[in-house]
């Protein structure tokens, strides 16, 4: 059946883990394999039993695609491939391939070493899982097999994030993962061409928000930093290396220069090395401004930003700013929840004396951004994941009205089926075309024209040819079907006269057709033959034999009913 089926195993009205199953023209693809960060038990993994209860996942799935390195999109990957079992290809971009294992290992360490969890994936499993990865470049068409191909598009959001187009024949689905439609200081904006997929699957976590401008967030950040410095305090910034670190450094450096500030800013060294390394590797994934800067000087050579010394920890007054996500269980997370007393290793209790500011610079698409992306890709239908159905009815209506497409919002485990009408290309023989043209009446571009021919299907090839050619190719003899009908007429005259009457009658009624009276007494209408004969038993009745071929069925039936009505009275 030509249809596309989508089942969210995670996401789909639940923010936490993304994992979507797509079935397209017989191919099965898994989009993302995320971990739900809010649960500590099996609920954090997607329910893979939806895919198949008994069979092997490797046999069922044609490929797995990971959109970016955030754990709610790739956190369950080692569990899925090594503990549940999958040996097929896993596609992701090069930066994602480089960064995923680092995050997975970090997470494993916290879960197992700090929290003491059992039944978690091991470091070796992470390594084995990554061996199955096939890295892709942007806009590169990758053939997964003879029929299935995928292509990655730039998504913004984080380094290496991509949106994927999955195509089988003329059917295609685009999955956005997380994306961002406004460029920031270190990443560009998401972009896709007018690929017109049957379905666009888009994340809609922030679909019901209107985002505060990036400039205002930065302004707030600079304001808090400035105020702390004016008070005589120092600034400490723990930040995820591969996220906003670069942005914030550029921002602060520019600000320090403009305001002529002298206070030192500290940055942890391990962080700068890592960040520097990855940016060097994936410079093409950052935006133009960064690339220009990189050419001129080393990314982390700043005048005012220096390495951090632990001795500063006890001074009263300094402020901590934490952009980004602090994983549950860490000191950072506890402080951001408002805790003012921390129990450290060895039962030591620390008081949180500093002012805490939690800021978010994460880039997601809001309502406006989603409308922009739908406008760019021009899909036939839209499917929203990562949002709450009740709170998205308005957005659904908005999308449906603006773009005249269907909008779906499935829950976890709910399958959405989209009927598609794939176009089947059929070759038409030149002879057949020429014959149609010869019948006069030039083709009208706006009107459909009815053609009669024979469809030959051979080796996934479709051709339309004339019946004669088809018979010839298939080595078959043509059979003719002929119908004969008897019409009884009351007419005492001789057969020849009856035939004459029939001829006159038909000639006057059927002005568009060729009516002829043959020398042997029979009447023809086109290729239909009418003969008059006397009734064997009743001389007052004449029998008309009307005979026609299968091709002239319509005219034949018409003539028969016409003659059954009788002939007009002859004038003397």
């Amino acid at each position, binding site marked *: 059946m030509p249809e596309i089926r989508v089942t969210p195993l995670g996401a789909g009205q639940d923010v936490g883990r993304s994992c979507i199953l797509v079935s397209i023209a017989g191919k099965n693809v898994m989009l993302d394999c995320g971990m739900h960060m809010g649960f500590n038990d099996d609920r954090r993994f997607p329910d893979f039993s939806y895919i198949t209860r008994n069979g092997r996942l490797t046999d069922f799935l044609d490929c797995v695609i990971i959109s970016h390195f955030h754990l709610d999109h790739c956190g369950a990957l080692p569990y899925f491939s090594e503990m549940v079992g999958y040996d097929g290809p896993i596609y992701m971009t090069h930066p994602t391939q480089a960064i995923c294992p680092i995050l997975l290992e970090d997470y494993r360490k916290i879960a197992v070493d700090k929290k003491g969890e059992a039944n978690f994936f091991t470091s070796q499993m992470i390594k084995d899982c990554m061996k199955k990865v096939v890295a892709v470049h942007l806009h590169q068409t990758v053939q997964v097999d003879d029929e299935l191909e995928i292509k990655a598009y730039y998504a913004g959001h984080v380094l290496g994030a991509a949106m994927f187009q999955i195509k089988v024949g003329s059917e295609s689905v685009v999955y956005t993962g997380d994306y961002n439609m406004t460029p920031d200081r270190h990443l560009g904006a998401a972009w896709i061409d007018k690929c017109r997929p049957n379905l666009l699957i888009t994340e809609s976590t*922030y679909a*019901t*928000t*209107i*985002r*505060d*401008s990036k*400039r*205002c*967030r*930065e*302004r*707030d950040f*600079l*304001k808090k930093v*400035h105020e702390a410095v004016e008070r005589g305090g120092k600034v400490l910034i723990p930040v995820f290396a591969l996220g906003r670190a670069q942005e914030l450094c550029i921002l602060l450096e520019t*600000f320090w220069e*403009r*305001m002529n500030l002298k206070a030192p800013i500290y940055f942890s060294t391990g962080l700068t090395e890592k960040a520097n390394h990855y940016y060097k590797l994936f410079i093409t994934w950052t935006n133009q401004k960064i690339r220009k800067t990189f050419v001129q000087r080393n990314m982390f050579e700043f005048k005012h930003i220096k390495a951090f010394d632990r001795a500063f920890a006890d001074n009263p007054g300094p402020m901590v700013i934490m952009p980004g996500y602090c994983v549950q269980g860490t000191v950072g997370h506890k402080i*951001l*929840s*408002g805790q003012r007393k921390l129990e450290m290793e060895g039962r030591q209790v620390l008081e949180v004396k500093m*002012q*805490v*500011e*939690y*800021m*978010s610079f994460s880039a997601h698409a*809001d*309502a*406006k951004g989603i*409308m922009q992306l739908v406008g760019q890709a021009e899909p036939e239908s839209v499917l929203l994941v990562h949002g709450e159905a*009740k*709170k*998205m*009815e*308005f*957005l659904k*209506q*908005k999308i449906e*009205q603006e773009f005249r497409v269907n909008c779906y919002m499935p829950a976890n485990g709910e399958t959405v089926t989209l009927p598609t009408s794939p176009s089947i290309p059929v070759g038409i023989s030149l002879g057949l075309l020429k014959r149609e043209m010869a019948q006069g009446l030039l083709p009208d571009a706006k009107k459909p024209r009815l053609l009669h021919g024979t469809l030959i299907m051979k080796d996934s090839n479709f051709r339309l040819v004339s019946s004669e050619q088809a018979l010839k190719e298939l080595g078959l003899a043509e059979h003719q079907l002929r119908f004969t009908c008897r019409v009884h007429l009351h007419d005492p005259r001789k057969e020849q006269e009856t035939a004459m009457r029939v001829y006159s009658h038909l000639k006057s009624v059927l002005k568009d057709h060729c009516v002829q009276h043959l020398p042997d007494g029979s009447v023809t209408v086109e290729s239909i033959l009418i003969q008059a004969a006397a009734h064997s038993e009743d001389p007052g009745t004449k029998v008309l034999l009307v005979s026609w071929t299968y091709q002239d069925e319509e005219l034949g039936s018409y003539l028969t009913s016409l003659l059954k009505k009788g002939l007009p009275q002859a004038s003397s």
Partner: protein
Amino acid sequence: MEAAEDWLVESLRWYQDFHAFDLSGATRVLEWIGDKGVFVAEYESLKKNEILHLILPLRLSVKENQGLFPERDFKVCHGGFSDTSVFDLKHVPDTRLLVTTGLPGSYLHVWQITEDSDVIQAVSTIAVQEKEDSLWPRVAIFSSTTPGVLHGVRLSSLRVVDLESQKTTYTSGVSDSEELSSLQVLDTNTFAFCCASGRLGLVDIRQKWAPSESVSNGRGSPGAAGGRWCAEVGGKVRSPGPSVAILGSNGQLCLLDPRDLCHPVSSVQCLVSAPSPDPELLRVTWAPGLDNCLAISGFDGTVQVYDTTSWDGMGSQVEPLFTHRGHIFLEGNQTDTTPLVTTHTWHPHKPRTLLSAASDASLHVWDWVDMHASS
């Protein structure tokens, strides 16, 4: 781009807080629901206009530990579609109902915020008595157990319609065809009207039409100078002084005492480039949390805050306490024309926080620093 960055850096001194948003379409509506939600609505003709119920960013709503709340975004709590342009929207207090008005002005539309979904549904319409081609009826709500909708295009067509029964419970009963520019309900029995000419009146609906009114042509009175006027009556009687402010498209601002509308207490010339390019957008609002302060907009891309404490006499030039220029410097859509502020409103209890919207679909929330106050 550079100018915007410069302005933002300068703004560190001028604003405590500053948020800038881009709506999908410009709004002339900023109507509060409680102290955490606002309504906005689009006003284009020939398209489906959105009506949105927005929840303020968490950061602006919490009273303590603001630093622990990173949320700076508006949440779209409910949304609806209007076939006509919406110029004004009023929420019916203690209900889930809204009334909108705009062009074409033959009907007022009543909407309901549904409970179990996020859609704002159209429920009914209220026919306007005298249909006009280019004028739209002003609206105010008498809230009670049986809410009434006060509306009209002119003084002659002013009436109150019971929302539920749709029966008319009050009519002005006069033939005066002066065009209205604003209506404001003051309590269960009184409302104030302001005509486009500058004529003001307070009406008690328990009596036959006998408003206490201003005189149109007295010296220094509004209207004598011509132009188009709008007014607001201050809600709080916190300090003695005039509580009625009337603003003209020529930049003149008069203060009046409601007990004597015939003699303005003071009249000043605001520091604006007059006349206003679109006098329908004029707006003057009293600050609910600051004594004697008011804000004006509708002349350009700014909102100005004035302290009226020491105003007296007629005709003096005054300087604003603060001018919000964000809409000029942070042009959302980078068009050639500078945006015009379409409306503004004060936060119900944060004394120096305002919301302002402009013709480029920008929406700002800002908390200005009083430079004159002693630190």
